[in-house]
């Protein structure tokens, strides 16, 4: 029996959010991942973000593929429906779910194997369709669940545990997402929840395809010296271009910043994300420039993090498709089934 429920005892004075819920209410069952796995930190960040956003769990749907990372939806939001689909195919399932009911928030969790290899095609097309969801890749540069093979996101310089060299070009999911039109693209690090939580909150408030590539080290198979997805490497090579603060609706921004160093972007639910430019030259609204920036810094072995591209101007899938505002799954026979007369007309037209 590999399913472990947590004791549901709540400490009486745990902090509660606007819904009167504690963080514990946003947890899932006990993680079965390796002690120290980066993925567990991402799970914690998701829990924190949902708690702070006061999300009702039943209005969230958790989607995933197959892998250690794809297991994590079991470890948060116990009261949300979840769908652990097949390897690499979560994007299509999420797209269908989204079309059926756009009132839920969709949190998709995938891995670098799940997304950059078997699921690359589905990922690319979910991006260009601007499916309204948060898509997180817990990127550890390896196939954790199948015991540590190279994944396609491995940088060319990285070396395997047993010294294997990686001759092939790596797939930078962030650049791909930007190029194919994702409207919210960020990179985080499982080791830095102060950066990650606001990114997740902003992404969940954004309408359209929000992609977060989280470098999430695999302590068991890819946290060694040669790895570029190890805690140490990321700490040493992280280059944060923008710091993002999340500002809930109706909340005042007090702190003052030097001229031109911050950008305030209002998100679809009227909350705002405040971007602190740590690199003055960087413009997170210019796709082409952002892409070039990624490439140049990656060439220097830097791991560029932060909110990298944001476009609140594009429409999301359902708008693009001119679908009625109410969820399609809420329409009843009366709305959907034409009359007998209508059918008779059709019959007549076929004579």
């Amino acid at each position, binding site marked *: 029996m590999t399913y472990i429920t947590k004791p549901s005892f709540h400490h009486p004075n745990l902090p509660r959010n606007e819904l009167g819920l504690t963080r514990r209410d946003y947890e899932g069952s006990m993680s079965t991942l390796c002690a120290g796995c980066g993925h567990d930190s991402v799970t914690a960040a998701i829990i924190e973000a949902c708690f702070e956003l006061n999300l009702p769990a039943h209005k969230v749907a958790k989607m995933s593929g197959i892998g250690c990372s794809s297991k994590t939806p079991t470890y948060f939001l116990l009261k949300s*429906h979840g769908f652990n689909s097949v390897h690499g195919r979560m994007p299509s399932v999420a*797209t*269908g779910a989204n079309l059926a009911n756009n009132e839920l928030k969709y949190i998709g969790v995938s891995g670098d194997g799940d997304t950059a290899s078997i699921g690359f*095609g589905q990922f690319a097309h979910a991006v260009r369709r601007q499916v309204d969801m948060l898509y997180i890749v817990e990127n550890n540069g390896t196939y954790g669940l199948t015991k540590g093979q190279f994944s396609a996101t491995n940088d060319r310089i990285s070396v395997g545990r047993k010294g294997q060299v990686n001759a092939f070009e790596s797939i930078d999911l962030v650049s791909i997402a930007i190029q194919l039109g994702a409207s919210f693209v960020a990179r985080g690090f499982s080791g830095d929840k102060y950066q990650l939580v606001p990114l997740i909150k902003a992404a969940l408030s954004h309408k359209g395809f929000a992609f977060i590539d989280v470098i999430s080290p695999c302590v068991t198979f890819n946290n060694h010296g040669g790895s570029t997805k190890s805690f140490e490497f990321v700490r040493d090579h992280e280059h944060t271009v923008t710091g993002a603060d999340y500002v809930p609706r109706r909340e005042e921004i007090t702190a003052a910043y030097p001229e031109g160093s911050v950008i305030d972007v209002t998100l679809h639910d009227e909350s705002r994300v405040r971007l602190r430019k740590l690199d003055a030259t960087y413009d997170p609204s210019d796709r082409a420039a952002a892409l070039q920036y990624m490439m140049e810094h990656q060439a220097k072995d830097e791991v560029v993090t932060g909110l990298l591209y944001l476009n609140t101007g594009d429409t999301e899938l359902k708008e693009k498709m001119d679908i009625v505002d109410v969820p399609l799954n809420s329409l009843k026979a009366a709305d959907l089934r034409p009359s007998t007369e209508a059918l008779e007309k059709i019959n007549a037209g076929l004579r």
Partner: protein
Amino acid sequence: MRVNDFVIKFANVNGSGSASANAMFAKAVFRMGVPVAPKNIFPSNIQGLPTWFEVRVNDKGFLGRREGIDMMVAMNPQSWDEDVASILPGGYLLYDSTFIREIKRDDIKTIGVPLTKLCNERFTIPRERQLFKNVAYVGALTALLDMDFSVVEGMIAEQFRGKPKAVQPNIDALNLGREYALKYFDCPLDMRVARSDAVGDQILVEGNAAAGLGCVFAGATVAAWYPITPSTSVAEAFERYCNRLRVDPETKKKKFAIVQAEDELAAIGMAIGANWNGARAFTATSGPGISLMSEFLGLAYFAEVPVLLFNIQRGGPSTGMPTRTQQSDIISCAYASHGDTKHVLLFPSDPTEVFDFAIKGFDLSDRLQTPIIVMSDLDLGMNDWTTAPFKIDETTEFDRGKVLNARQLDEIKEFGRYLDVDGDGIPYRTYPGTHPEKGAFFTRGTSHDEYARYTEDGKVNERVMRRLSRKFDTAKTLLPGPVFGQVNQGATLGLIHFGTTAIAIPEAMELLAERKIHLDTMRVRAFPFSREVEDFIKSHEKVFVVEQNRDAQMRSLLVNECGIDPARLVPVLNFDGFPITAAAIADMVSEHLGQGERDQAQDGFAAE
């Protein structure tokens, strides 16, 4: 005299605009009240290759394919020789006499109409000269076959209601051919179309249009598909009808979503995601798509997510014969995906049934919480059929199956997604977002317990797998049962058929009766098979199974699932990509039966 009983075939070049003219001819016959079966025999390319249009006209409603051409309209020099060769002795050859052609046969009657010349004189624009040739030979046919000209005129008027300028040139083109024929041949020939009331209130429609329309009436809101011949027109029809019937009059917004997916894996993934979320969603594909969808079919079977899939079968294996028909995906659909999986199949026989099964299919899929595959084929899907009008019963609600709402969740003492509460093997489900506290569960393709929790306890998984078998047994009681043909008391021989083979059966039975062979017939409409199917087989000493594939796949299913001795099931097969003919069935059956058996079949004594 061949009145209302002949086959006429048009040989054209793909992309030359002949299709609409040929269809107009068929429709005209239909409007004269005579049952027709037009069949479009087209190449897997877009322009320039030979294409044929075969129309069987039959007052009795014998509309299965028939070999032998009574009249050939030979417009394609490329295929001239084989076209001429296929004409029955005494038959007619209508051709474009603008060009001199060598006709190597003296046992047929030739009708030369200088179509090119006539059109070049009357029309100036090259494209028009080309197109109107087709209209002109239809005109000639109205005279030769004694057709009601006003009917054809009426159709032209309808067709160009939008652009009146186009009407006259078409009428002129018709007259070019018609007048030439009246002038140079003594019309009508001894082969004719005579007004009849055999059509009654029937309609002329293709199966794929019926599928798309059925999905509209079934309340489907999401369609995800990937283009592939011959299934493409299912999604197209759904879109066409939705635009007509499902657009909000005020906002102009759509009460439907149609996604052209990036491939078949994504298409079925989307359909599954939407159904999981409580919207009725479907996909449509053909052979190669079925192979690609099999992983997801296994997930939907095991995680128990409803989904409707139309398989418009074409010639396999692999890319095979994309523009020909077969019934060769039966095994691959019934057992799609690795592991112990079984899927529910429906076998419609005509467009009306495709429409009904689309509606029924969604109810069954929701009720059984499992994929349902509607097994159509190219012949049914892409050709127009003379078929009963579509009907619905507005009084019935959709059957969404065992879905718990918030109130029910509050009432029951415990919810377990995969608990067999009712003993029929069908558990209860909830849609995401139903209740703030209760009813959430985790859908997964990994082994799980009754509460949808991951487990590696083999015994628990075994329990779940046994329940799935139980559910499959329940399905037998819910699916459309078989339809029986004429039943001669005491006949020891039976014949099983399904899908598009059905259209050839009455005629085949008549041919066999002439040879003093009598069989009981049963049309199977669904898999898994109901008791009646087993009983029919068991109550006959020998049962022929007619199917359009090489490996007698339906026979295999019958043997496997009903525990039948294969010795009693005789395969009658056709897999050349064309619909099986009544003559072929009759011949294979009588060939198999030695004289002895035939007698005994005849007067119904048991032998063996």
